[in-house]
């Protein structure tokens, strides 16, 4: 009797072990499939002209996504220029001074903004910038991306500053350094690699965002460097090509996706390497 019970318990144990193995396998499987397809299908159209040429019309071979690459870089950097100071300074406020009702309100705002779906930020930028300016623009795209970027970086800055031991701050203050100088030169500098990692991770996230750009930056067939005009971006091109009915545009969508994932992962990995060195 005890023998069968033990056997059943052992069998259940062994069976469940395989169930867990299977779960882990199924979780990583899509990643391999996605990367496999990206490389195989993306490589078909991946040639030099993809990176340096403008898009060609349907049916005309060749052509590239160069204007999209430029647009993605411009819009991302534009979004970050305004956001980094706001986000880092707010993070410093929350970590170093933030007590009381105002600080709780700011923290609540940051939590709220972090969870807002990215397409909502597109609506926000559309109403605030596209409607009054009466045209789609790189500015509006960058504004939408800023709204995604800021809360993430405020949070990581605060978290990273909190990992700096109080004793470090006290030691600096005991030496007679002014508090603002101690904060910037000692505390922030100690936490800087972590903060930079947060900035890079947030950058890699907004680099691939599509939804907030749909009706802000809109996309463009041609070169565009004026910031108050519609601007192309790689994610938008991937989307347009993917849902088009044309076979050769589908190939371009895969090639564009390969370029996009390369940009995203390079920054993502750079961010990770940075924290690893810190440890």
């Amino acid at each position, binding site marked *: 009797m005890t023998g069968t019970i033990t056997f059943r318990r052992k069998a259940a144990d062994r069976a469940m072990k395989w169930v*867990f193995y299977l779960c882990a396998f199924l*979780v990583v499987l899509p*990643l391999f499939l996605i990367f496999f397809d990206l490389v195989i299908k993306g490589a078909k159209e991946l040639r030099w002209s993809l990176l340096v040429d403008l898009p060609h019309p349907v049916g005309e071979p060749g052509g590239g996504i160069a204007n999209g690459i430029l647009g993605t870089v411009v819009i991302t950097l534009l979004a970050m220029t305004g956001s980094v100071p706001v986000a880092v*300074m707010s993070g410093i406020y929350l970590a170093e001074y933030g007590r009381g009702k105002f600080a709780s309100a700011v923290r609540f705002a940051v939590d709220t903004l972090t969870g807002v*779906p990215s397409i909502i930020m597109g*609506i926000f930028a559309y109403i605030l910038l596209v409607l009054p300016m009466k045209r789609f623009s790189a500015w509006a795209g960058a504004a939408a991306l800023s709204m995604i970027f800021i809360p993430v970086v405020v949070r990581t800055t605060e978290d990273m500053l909190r990992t700096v031991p109080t004793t470090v701050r006290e030691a600096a203050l005991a030496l007679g350094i002014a508090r603002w100088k101690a904060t910037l030169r000692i505390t922030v500098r100690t936490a800087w690699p972590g903060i930079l990692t947060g900035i890079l991770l947030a950058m890699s996230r907004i680099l691939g965002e599509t939804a907030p750009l749909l009706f802000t930056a809109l996309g463009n067939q041609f070169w565009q460097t004026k910031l108050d005009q519609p601007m192309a971006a790689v994610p938008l091109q991937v*989307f347009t090509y993917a849902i088009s009915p044309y076979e050769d545009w589908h190939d371009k969508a895969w090639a564009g996706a390969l370029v996009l994932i390369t940009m995203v992962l390079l920054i993502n990995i750079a961010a990770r390497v940075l924290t690893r060195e810190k440890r």
Partner: protein
Amino acid sequence: MASRSGKYTRDFAFEKATAFFASVVLFLAVLLFAVLLRESLPALRKFGASFLVTGTWDPVLERFGALPFLFGTVVSSFLALLIAVPLSVGAAIFINEFAPPWLKAPVSLLAELLAAIPSVIYGLWGIFVLVPILRDLFMKPVTKYLGWIPLFKGPVYGPSMLAAGVLLAIMIIPFILSVSREVLATVPQRQKEAVLSLGGTRWEMIRIVIGQHCLPGIFGATILGLGRALGETMAVTMVIGNRPEISASLFQQGYSMAAVIANEFAEAGGLQLSSLVLIGLLLMLVTLVVNLAAKGILSKMVARASRGI
């Protein structure tokens, strides 16, 4: 003395400067709500609560109701949870309890990479790889033999509620997985050892410990995943079929709140624009409530763990 007071003035100025930037963030959040509310007022005045239960979406007659989009968002998100939660929890248990040490870092790195892939790439992969696989290997055979069940009724197109649910599941797995791992890690080692020392098998240890300890945390992880799934736009737009219909069948095409905004916003005006903004506002409020709930549950969990219960 003069230099000392100068030092404090600069301290004061620095603190106020950081506070100023913090107030910018607060202002942006308030502005976001205000702008969305103001722009959705015309639709809110015209349709009121009937907006939530009306199924028509007719730009020509200017009659708008959000029901098909609410339905699509809710069904695809819950379908995603149904698939993602068991898989993520299982994988988390594998990583924390079974995996050899050298495998832990790569597996969790891979899961994190899944989270870094832009959603438009998931959508692209969904259109050209996932949808054909699901259509030919799952939907067609199932509808052939089980088509009499409303849930699996044909005809099979490919883009469907099911495709959206599966793709969303793949996208939210990394989040549920990492939170589940943190939750599992809060279990005191001595409790696990206690079960094992009484002669329990590894599975019994997991079952008891999770039942005792981790269910609220896993629920929190689930709600967090829901918050992600509700607002996901591009991937869903690309595979859900974009047809504002309500069907009991998972194989039929549907629409979601985020998808209708993505598809119609750029060309909308007047009452249609206002209705789309109202859908956006609803989506934002729902995700906000869901995220706050998840945060509440998880922070309670962490507090409990730090007390060592």
